[in-house]
């Protein structure tokens, strides 16, 4: 009797385990990736390209997963954060309610902090802001905030290195600093100025301009006044179209003296920026972008899809979505907490490296439980404890004939040695 019961129990248990594991292998993962988009509001010019970036990432990842035979499909849903932290809160909630397991965006730190404090920390949903302020790291996020964009403290040092490289040192050199009046520009400009002055350089400015102004001629005049050795211009493509034209009109502007940051790192200069405003200008961006095979694939996907043109930081959003996809594939689950726990095991330094070029193989690897180091279109991540990328490698690029050409690479962490 006991024996039969025992056997029956064992059989039942065995069947249960078998069906459970079989079920786990047979259940495909349905992942929803949320997009926190600036559709309306003052930053609405960034919305279309970020939307497109995540869409393309999801599309490509789905194709590669099918190719690799890995049971995961993703879809993307979006919500408008309206450039306002209060609206951003409700946007994030609506996405989480509709099943989003990770949120790509938002663009500015105030929105990110509102969302983190209000929604995502509690629900263990990862968010991937494109804001670069170090302010973001003043809150305890329980490992839910990751960035694929290098924080402005590091990029400022890269700008210093780029300028020093061109000018042969900082000491005694006068540099004009101009930035668009919002958090990104302010953070970078402040960090650059203090680092430059610490090295004995001189700063003219900072000249801060309101993006909605009717003319930028007075600001442009202040940039070129006193014939500085270099100009640091922290801006976005749409306002640079206006500022750049004003700079050229001063008659004293030399673009080869100019340096820009990653928001103005565009593989091809858009039509509305006059060539005389940017030809020969140098700049910094994180990692190893536009030359690599991964970037070539990204760019061809982008061009084939039509629609929005390249804008700032779209490759970073693309990578964020891909990482989310990989983590979900490895966790074999679309549970936000599980995905959060697996982000680092798809970006483990020292593990086998995978790229966009072999994403299908990467998916196969994570499907079998392996740890990998996925290198994004913008480069390796090597997330620090706080979720910011630690790559201090920056590319110094130059605009040649309207195209971005990388001319050297530096380690920003070495700059203050």
């Amino acid at each position, binding site marked *: 009797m006991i024996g039969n019961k025992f056997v029956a129990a064992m059989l039942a248990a065995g069947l249960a385990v078998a069906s459970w594991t079989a079920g786990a292998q047979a259940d495909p993962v349905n992942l929803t990736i949320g997009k926190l988009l*600036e*559709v*309306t509001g*003052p930053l*609405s*010019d960034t*919305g*279309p*390209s970020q939307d497109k970036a995540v869409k393309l990432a999801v599309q490509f990842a789905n194709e590669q997963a099918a190719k690799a035979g890995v049971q995961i499909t993703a879809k993307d849903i979006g919500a408008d954060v309206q450039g306002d932290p209060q609206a951003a809160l409700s946007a994030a909630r609506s996405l989480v309610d509709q099943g989003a397991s990770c949120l790509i965006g938002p663009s500015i730190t105030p929105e990110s902090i509102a969302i983190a404090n209000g929604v995502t920390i509690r629900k263990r949903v990862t968010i991937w802001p494109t804001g670069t302020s170090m302010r973001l790291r003043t809150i305890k996020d329980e490992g839910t905030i990751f960035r694929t964009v290098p924080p402005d403290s590091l990029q400022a040092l890269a700008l210093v290195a780029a300028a020093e490289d061109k000018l042969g040192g900082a000491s005694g050199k006068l540099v004009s600093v101009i930035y668009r*009046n919002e958090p990104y520009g302010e953070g970078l400009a402040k960090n650059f100025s203090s680092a430059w002055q610490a090295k004995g350089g001189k700063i003219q400015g900072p*000249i*801060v*301009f*309101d993006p*909605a*102004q*009717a*003319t930028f*001629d*007075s*600001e442009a*005049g*202040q940039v070129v006044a006193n014939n500085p050795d270099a100009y640091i211009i922290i801006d976005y*493509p*749409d*306002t640079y*179209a*206006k500022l750049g*034209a*004003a700079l*050229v*009109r*001063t*008659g004293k502007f030399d673009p080869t003296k100019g340096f820009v940051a990653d928001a103005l790192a565009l593989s091809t200069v858009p*039509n*509305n920026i*006059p060539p*005389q*405003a940017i030809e020969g200008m140098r700049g910094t961006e994180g990692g190893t972008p536009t030359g690599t095979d991964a970037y070539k694939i990204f760019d061809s996907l982008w061009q084939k899809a039509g629609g*929005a*043109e390249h804008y700032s930081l779209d490759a970073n959003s693309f990578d964020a979505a891909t990482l989310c996809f990989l983590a979900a594939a490895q966790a074999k689950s679309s549970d936000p907490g599980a995905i959060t726990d697996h982000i680092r095991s798809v970006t483990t330094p020292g593990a086998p490296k995978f790229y966009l070029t072999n994403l299908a193989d990467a998916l196969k690897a994570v499907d079998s439980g392996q740890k990998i180091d996925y290198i994004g279109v913008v480069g390796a991540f090597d997330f620090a404890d706080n979720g910011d990328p630690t790559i201090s490698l920056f590319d110094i690029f130059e605009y040649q004939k309207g195209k971005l050409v990388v001319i050297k690479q530096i380690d920003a962490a070495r700059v203050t040695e």
Partner: protein
Amino acid sequence: MSLTALVLAAVVGPVAAGQATLNGLVAAGYFALGAVGLTLVFGVLRLVNFAHGDMLTFGTYVTLGVTALGLPFWPAAAVGVVATAVLAVLLDRLIWEPLRRARTSTLQLFLAATGLAIVLRYGVQFFATGQVRSVGLDTTSSVDIGPWHLGTLQLAVMLIGLVTIVLAGLGLRYTRLGKEMRAVSDNIALAEVSGIDTRRTIRITWLAAGGLAGLAGILYAAAIGSINPNFGFTILLSLFAAAILGGIGNAYGALAGGIVIGLAQEWSTLFFNPRWKPAVGFAILILTLLLLPRGIMGRGKARA
């Protein structure tokens, strides 16, 4: 004005002062042209049209759309101007006329205008997306006047704007239509009684206001180089400032108001960080309302 310019020249040097003055006149061109339509509607209809800025946007995007179909810039601009004028009249039929007949309060009108502004702005964005667009003209060529420089396109815009405003002012003063508009703006009941077809006058006012708004938007977009659907709304308060400063209902007043605001903003950059420029405009607006409520040239009622 000229006294201030001379003082500035003494303080910061003639080159800087002169350049800032030129820059100010460029800005003045945009503000003045945008403000004329606003002031006409304000004067004739007593309507604070919060949707005016978005009419600038509408006209510009129609122009952009037409150029995408293949038409060159200037004919496309003409289409844009006409389209905005027609839109203005249509909106009057649909929204403003019923509200006038119902004698609604300032609050109701304000709400309708705000709603209309939102509908126009996001209607444009629905079709054109939030992406930045460029008119595509050459914004970099400039003319040198001694040690000072001025963009060629900016100069063209200033001249066209000036001519338009002067024509509008002359029209208001000397044509029969203009006189009727002024009569209606003074006292609509009296104008009716004296035989003026006020409905027609109002329609003409809207046609003019809409056309001027479209023209202002197109010229602004052409000279500045790149725009997105928000641009009309963001300069709206500066347009109000210019209109009120110049005196409600007065085309030359709009010109004067635009000049004061434009110059003040650009001169302020000689002493303060340019980030404060927009605040300068609003500060002038408040000071005007408090100290000079009739405006520089207006004859409007100041007190409640």
